[in-house]
């Protein structure tokens, strides 16, 4: 009896000990996960900066950043800047987990859609933008970094996605006029198909950002993703239905490769790379140049229907909470100067977000034509539910394109789910 009691006591002790270990581990893990958002540290003299291969060539990328770091450190003795270049792939996963673990960067390269996603973690960049600097930015660039009336980051580059057409394809069908509107592109499509070409190549893969694929059509039709106050989905408007119906006509008639509605192969494996696609609004000139050849790229304006709008992005540098905000702010202001950003912009064919910058591509007709489109670009909605809404909308667009549902029903179903989501997130 005594033995049985002893055994029970031992077992109970073991259970309590095990429970304590479990609780401690859980507490440690939860505490670890929650410690990524401390307030700024004014004693910190190191600025950890995360960038991505905006400059494709690793050597050129390293040389560019090394040069800037040396210049900045010389002007600010005692300060150390560490620049780490991470791959584009899964960058949000890496950034989110690093922030959660308290190992996030002080400064990072972000695009506008990330600004709203990380808004809680950022220190607004307004304070480091003198009025003269602010006035020098292109309105589209400044709009792209402004969330709730505050500039969250300093723009360092811009890009635009005008309608690009392949001259080889147009020569093959004996056409000399390039389309600039939906109607013109649709009118050419049957002729192109008869000769074995696609009018365009629409990527409906749900991993592709709608900012680059469907939203430009929505904007061109006169619609928008969210209502003006950002509290409701607005993509199921008449404009949205018009855009999706137009796109569905292309899929149904074989005017765009059907496989691309669900998958995105490497560009080398696509019809676009094989000179089988007439026009695209989802690629830059730099992307198609290796396959089409520079001389065969015809840069048009942004495609238009009710209005002419293209997707364009703005690359920015943002300061994260936990950084020495004074130093980090000084660093991003330094990098954002036109003389310092030129080296970042030219290798990838990007443009300056400022109007006071020296011309980057004098005499380059292709780049000059692309630059003209910058004023009619949209970076996509800066709403904190933007990504979640995209996740709801993209599969519905796919369903409509594959004939599983009608464009109207697809957009209405997505809007209904989106409204619930937006309400929950507010």
């Amino acid at each position, binding site marked *: 009896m005594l033995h049985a009691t002893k055994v029970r006591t031992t077992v109970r002790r073991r259970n309590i000990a095990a429970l304590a270990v479990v609780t401690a581990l859980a507490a440690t893990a939860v505490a670890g*996960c929650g410690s990524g958002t401390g307030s700024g540290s004014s004693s910190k003299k190191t600025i950890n900066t995360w960038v991505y291969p905006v400059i494709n060539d690793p050597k050129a990328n390293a040389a560019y950043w090394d040069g800037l770091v040396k210049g900045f450190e010389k002007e600010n003795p005692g300060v150390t800047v560490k620049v780490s270049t991470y791959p584009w792939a899964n960058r949000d*996963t890496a950034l989110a987990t690093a922030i959660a673990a308290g190992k996030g960067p002080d400064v990072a390269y972000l695009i506008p859609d990330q600004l709203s996603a990380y808004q809680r973690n950022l220190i607004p960049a307004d304070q480091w933008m003198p009025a003269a600097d602010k006035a020098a930015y292109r309105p589209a660039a400044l709009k792209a970094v402004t969330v709730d009336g505050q500039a969250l980051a300093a723009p360092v580059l811009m890009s635009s996605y005008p309608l690009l057409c392949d001259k080889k394809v147009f020569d093959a069908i004996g056409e000399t006029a390039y389309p600039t509107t939906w109607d013109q592109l649709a009118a050419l499509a049957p002729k192109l198909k008869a000769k074995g070409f696609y009018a365009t190549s629409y990527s409906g*893969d*749900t991993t592709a950002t709608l900012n680059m694929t469907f939203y430009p059509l929505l904007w061109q039709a006169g619609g928008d993703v969210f209502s003006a106050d950002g509290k409701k989905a607005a993509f199921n408007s008449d404009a949205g239905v018009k855009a999706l119906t137009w796109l569905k006509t292309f899929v149904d008639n074989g005017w765009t490769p*059907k496989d691309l509605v669900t*998958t995105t192969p490497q560009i080398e494996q696509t019809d676009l790379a094989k000179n089988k696609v007439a026009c695209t609004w989802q690629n830059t000139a730099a992307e198609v140049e290796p396959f089409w050849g520079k001389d065969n790229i015809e840069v048009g304006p942004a495609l238009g229907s009710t209005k002419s709008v293209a997707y364009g992005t703005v690359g920015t540098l943002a300061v994260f909470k936990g950084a020495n905000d004074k130093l980090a702010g000084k660093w991003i202001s330094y990098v954002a100067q036109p003389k310092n950003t030129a080296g970042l912009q030219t290798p990838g064919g990007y443009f300056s977000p400022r109007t006071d910058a020296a011309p980057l591509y004098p005499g380059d007709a292709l780049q000059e034509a692309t630059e003209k489109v910058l004023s009619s670009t949209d970076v996509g909605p800066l709403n904190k539910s933007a990504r979640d809404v995209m996740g709801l909308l993209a599969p519905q667009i*796919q369903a409509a394109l594959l004939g599983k549902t009608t464009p109207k029903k697809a957009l209405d179903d997505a809007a209904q789910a989106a409204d619930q989501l937006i309400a929950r997130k507010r």
Partner: protein
Amino acid sequence: MAAVAERTTRPQKKRRGPHERREARIGLLFVLPCFLLFLAFRFGPGIAGLVLGFTDYTIGDTTHFTGLQNFQRMMHDPLFWSSLRVTVVYSVLAVPFTILASLGLALLTRRAFRGSRLFRSIFFLPVVTSLILASTVFIWIFSTKGPWSDLMGLLGLPEQSWLTDSALVLPAIALVGIWSRCGYGMLILLARLQDVPRELEEAALMDGAGPFQRFRYIVAPQLKPAFFFLAVIETTNSFQIFDAIYVMTGGGPANASYSLVYQLYDAGFKYSDLGYASALGCVLFVMTVVVALVQRMVLGKEK
């Protein structure tokens, strides 16, 4: 009474001598690093995941305990039910066929013949091949202009991309899963097959048993523990299907291949909704445990 008898017949535990105790301590010392790593990188995150499932944890925001809110939300989330259905259907397709394919390959390469080692290596190759890389090749294979579509045409079936069809996308991904996993199953079954005494099969042959009877009554019963092991491993693996889907379809068309782990990934890393993602992880964990227990009841009765 029976209990008393059992107690009295239970062998007395032999007291270990100082030498044995020392050996045991050394053994424990060897195991300790692995155990600590397991605690830190498996058990700890697992428990943290369970705890986070009951919170509204979002990166950069204050975390609150929300009780069962995430699970209630899940019950009303059509995407959760859709991704659960996709995961189950995928598992139903992939697991049995992976085991069958593994068995076929193991039986083919069981006996030593000229080149048998080469064949075993070739069959095992997909296991050590990156599924991400392989998936990019399979995108082409299953595309409208790919060889799979041509093969379907030769068989008189519609020539189409299986990845754009809601009904065919999961069989296509399951084929990739089977291709990538059957080499591992083959290895497990092959190891077990080596232990089946040849005399038993020879005696059955003398008694006039055909190949199917020999397999049914002699080989298959010996393979039961290996089948159980494979069923558990493959089910767990198929419940976690993500990489092939991520590369090949992105969950499409129209969520027809959007699995539970894909939803978990999106919730956690795309939408920063880590509380909900953790709750999805809890459900996946419970599912895996329940299925393993059921498999144990059905397949592992004797062992």
